[in-house]
């Protein structure tokens, strides 16, 4: 009998790539300093909400929200790593997207930055805050935006693995591999700038030709298929735009990185190192002014189907993220989830700290950067009272050192409007906003 289909008995190659911590790098000079300090926004999302035991519970100290509202607020354990930074931080409670309250408890990650209303078969998301900003300032940097998530890609509707959506409501695929991201940000390739120019010119005419040739094909496709082809064509056109932009960027070299960067190899099986790497990438991208907006979706709410769901277990905490969140109401579950909340916050604190220690223009990186962090669940499945943190942006007129609860009738989009104002981005409201949230500004 012919055995050609048998696999080679001796060798079977398995997935290569070994998870390792990365030697961290120092970033060298900046490419082309902007004339005035750039204004930036980093948005970070985590799924499943936080631990919220009652004030009489023996675990009350693990309630995510601070004690006492206003300026005299006191951090509890989950946020305690922010204490040294309290002058730069505002904690927000009570806010949510009204549209999200009508959606399934697992469905609201998609609209965290869009505030859009979508339900049922007519799934259509809106533009996300970061992409809205990118559309206005994206031309000023090499990359319009930096979109990252632990799971990568786009996921599926209501279980998106990205926070960012285009003006058409289409998901922007997130990058998940630190190595890949670093290559995009700082990779030089080996082509000289002239060769690169030629490549870009070729690319331009290739794309033109593809567009032209596809037109004749379109006529022979059914309606549904035409829509698929339209997606393809839209993508090609977008690349064309990008090629034009890149051609303009060509005379400006990418920022240089120390050699060690080439060894960048960490993945999601080491959650702490991985999250650090992702935050560090935002830091580097901002510091080098490679982009002004960045999003990072720490995890998505698909429970069993997401990589980040295993983060707590990888850290020795019992169970998966979803299970941890579910167990928060029972026994010492509040403390267990609280400890994980605490760990997530410490990563955020480290990031804010780094921004605050880096000088630029007349202040620090943090002074010109807004950091927006939170979840679209309070407790798991509960789509109101989002746990939110806003940090940085002193030069943008932000007021901090307070715990605010503007009320459950206030849509989260009002905060987005205020952030757009702070960044001087023209707008006509955002999603379902009803006004601004002036309390966060001086």
């Amino acid at each position, binding site marked *: 009998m012919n055995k050609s289909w048998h696999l080679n008995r001796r060798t079977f190659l398995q997935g290569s790539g070994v998870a390792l911590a990365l030697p961290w790098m120092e970033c060298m000079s900046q490419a082309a300093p902007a004339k005035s300090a750039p204004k930036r926004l980093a948005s970070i999302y985590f799924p499943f909400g936080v631990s919220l035991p009652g004030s009489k519970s023996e675990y009350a100290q693990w309630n995510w929200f601070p004690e006492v509202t206003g300026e005299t607020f006191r951090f509890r354990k989950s946020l305690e790593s922010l204490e040294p930074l309290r002058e730069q931080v505002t904690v927000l409670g009570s806010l949510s997207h009204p549209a999200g309250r009508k959606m399934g408890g697992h469905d609201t990650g998609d609209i965290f930055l869009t505030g859009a209303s979508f339900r049922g078969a007519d799934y259509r998301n809106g533009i996300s805050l970061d992409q809205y900003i990118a559309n206005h300032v994206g031309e000023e940097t090499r990359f319009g935006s930096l979109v990252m998530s632990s799971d990568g890609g786009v996921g599926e509707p209501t279980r998106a693995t990205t926070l960012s959506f285009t003006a058409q409501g289409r998901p922007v695929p997130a990058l998940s591999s630190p190595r890949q991201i670093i290559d995009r940000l700082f990779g030089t390739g080996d082509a000289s700038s002239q060769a690169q120019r030629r490549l870009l010119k070729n690319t331009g005419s290739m794309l033109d030709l593809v567009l032209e040739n596809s037109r004749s094909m379109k006529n*022979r496709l059914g309606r549904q298929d035409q829509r698929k082809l339209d997606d393809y064509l839209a993508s090609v056109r977008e690349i064309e735009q*990008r090629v034009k932009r890149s051609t303009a960027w060509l005379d400006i070299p990418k920022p240089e990185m120390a050699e060690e960067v080439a060894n960048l190899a960490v993945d999601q099986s080491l959650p702490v190192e991985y999250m650090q790497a992702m935050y560090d990438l935002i830091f580097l991208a901002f510091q080098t002014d490679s982009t002004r907006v960045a999003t990072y979706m720490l995890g998505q709410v698909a429970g069993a*189907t997401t990589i980040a769901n295993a983060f707590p277990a990888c850290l020795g905490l019992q169970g998966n993220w979803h299970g941890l969140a579910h167990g928060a109401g029972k026994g010492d579950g509040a403390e267990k989830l609280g400890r994980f909340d605490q760990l997530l916050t410490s990563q955020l604190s480290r990031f804010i700290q780094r921004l605050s220690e880096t000088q630029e223009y007349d202040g620090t990186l943090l002074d010109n950067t807004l950091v927006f962090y939170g979840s679209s669940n309070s407790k798991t499945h509960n789509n109101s009272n989002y746990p939110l943190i806003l940090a940085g942006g002193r030069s943008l007129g932000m007021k901090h050192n307070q715990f605010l609860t503007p009320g459950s009738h206030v849509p989260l989009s009002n905060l987005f409007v205020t952030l757009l104002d702070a960044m001087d981005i023209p707008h006509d409201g955002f999603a379902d906003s009803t006004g601004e949230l002036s309390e966060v500004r001086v």
Partner: protein
Amino acid sequence: MLHRILILTATLLVSVVSAAEPDLKTFRSRVEPVLKQYCYDCHGPEGEASPRMTLLDPDLYSGVDGETWHDALNRINQGKMPPADAEALPEAERQIVVDWLTTEISGATEAKRSTGGKVVFRRLTNYEYNNTLRDLLGIEFDYAENLPPESKSVDGFLNNGQVLGISPLQMEYYLAAARLALNKAIVTGDQPEVFSQVVQKSIQGARDNSVNGEMLDGRQQFIAGITRFPRAGKIRVTVQAYSVIPDGKPVPEMEVNIGIRSDTLSPSGRLAVTEVVGSEAEPETLVFEGRIESFPLPGKNPKYPGIQIRLKNLTALPEPVPKKGEPRPPSTEPNIYIKSVTFEGPIYDNWPPQHHINILPQEGVEEAGYVERVVSEFMRRAFRRPVTKTEVAKIVDFHNSIARESESFEDAIRETLALVLISPEFLFLAEPIEPGKPGKPGGLGRKVQSLTEHELATRLSYFLWSSMPDQQLFDLADKKKLSKPAELELQVERMLEDERSWQFVRNFTSQWLDLSGLHRIAINPQYYKDFDERLKSQMAEETVRFVGEVLYHDLSVLNLLRSDFVVINQSLARHYGLPDPGSSQFVRVQLQGHENRGGLMTQGSFLLINSNGEDSHPIKRAVWILDRLLDDPPAPPPPDVPALESEKEDLASLTIKRQLELHREKASCNSCHRQIDPWGIPFENYDAIGRWRETGLRLVRGQAVQAELDSHAKLPTGAEVDGVVDFQKYMIEHESERFARALVKKLTTYALGRTLEFTDEAEVSELTTQFINNQYNLKKLMIAIVQSSLFQSK
């Protein structure tokens, strides 16, 4: 026999797919009266509560109130409606409303998703893209590495046209991948210098403090320092080694990694894992090949130059290190001895290499029309069909426009062919409508045409190989001979003989059975201290090999339900408590005794995926069986359902079965769960990692305690089964037809790359009957699918 089949066909016609139209009759006659009596007081014209139900459109298919109805269903299910102070809804009435709403919602969802029974113009999946480039260019490489990960369709398959979209980022990476691929395929200049180095001594005292050497026990590793290496191209690592295996110990497995040294951890990638036999007198020569650019390479001016080849013994357990000055006692573990490691690269069989000549033949280079010939031949293969002169001319025009400015002739050709590789005809499986060709009526009022010969060749090769057609399929299509049923049968047989058909086994099995789920479950070390994470991929491999065994050896697929053999390796045998098969490779082992193994439902993959990493999870196991094996998935749980509170002390003392019974005392839970839970109970004797157990395990206040377990279940069909063997018997005796039908549907869905619809039911039933008559033979089923009009029309 005839009698039995007639009955069977009758039951098969009772479709599990809901009819494609709203059932307003039931609403008027049965549902509305219930609503009137129990809901309209508040939710009617006189009431104050929102929504006003009398205004809701009961047509969920074309109406706008589907979501509101869905909310209503959830509230009724959760027992929130009617509220406690209103007249309670009696169970029978509740059931009427719930049943109607559930059917309508799922029917309406399906109708909205419908593509009219047509395969959607679909992009290649990442793995198909990778395989296609490999076959097109003749170079094995991970081309799809940078492409964004893909989403699953509702059926769990990755090759469903509806979920395969495209985005600018993806487009950008396609272009980059095309250029990269052609840079590998087409070479310039003279043959690069070949680096070659033989290493006989390991680097000593690496940074993790281990003593390295030429003997690989459970602690030591061999590190070959390679000073000169290429940065691209095929490399070869040749290892001379032998092993010393004490009696009763397994053959040791050796891992070969390539990586670099750094200050912290040393990144590396795996080249191969292999078992080592041989003896000191006659050592083995093991040869491994790969592409150097698949591995971490040092930077341009690194602190630690060079690369390292690291060899490890994966089998031997670490033995205690003797105290200083004391002699080392004889080892009782299987150890590997390394005589030498040879590194060579970049390797070419000749120059220019064959993959270059395949694209740029050496003859006629100077002749006019050479570029046309090159482009035309490449396009034909890339587009998987004959190409027209006009199509070729446009691409050649592009070539001519860039040729002068390009650095070399090869460079211009690379760019030109990259253009072909980002064209929709390559990236998508296109089956355009042919004007003027006759067709027959299909779904949604559209016409169905038969495939062209080349489209058929393409469907066939992506079904069986997840890649492009080979020359023989092209030739048959050119001669218009492929669509003949006898030829199709011959081709399926031939293609299954080819190693590429493992792509079918692997992709279909892992998507159908959700094997990627293994990596979504984290095993809690509090319960399973010694669980080896590497077992997870071996469990997936076991299931893939097992399905392969059934396919390639013409066994009945009922073996998937229960088999008297397993396909395992040493470590899985140890894990399952089965006798040692004597090999670290997967082999078929006939079971003697060991009744609790055999069939998919006793494999680690199924048992682990459907656990919570701590204990068995009967509900998940049940849902998996209903969904994957019987194609009867229960409705998804309503939002806000509480989890089982097994950590509550009063519950912790109960068996899981008993806990589930308590859970079902709530009517709203019961209506779904009485249909679900019993299907998972028979597997209670398997723990979360798939080992057999006689008693349960529970964690109370952080302490693991023994607990009773109960695997006796009364199925919704009325049958009683006691444990897994009994359940398997039940499945074979009473559910084999349903299983056959489910498999037909899953396989057809995969073969077509689209969700099956109402209009496909008749053909599915016919295929099922035929499948059963053919003694559940998988190969014959695949032939029948390929010969069916479902497969052959567009």
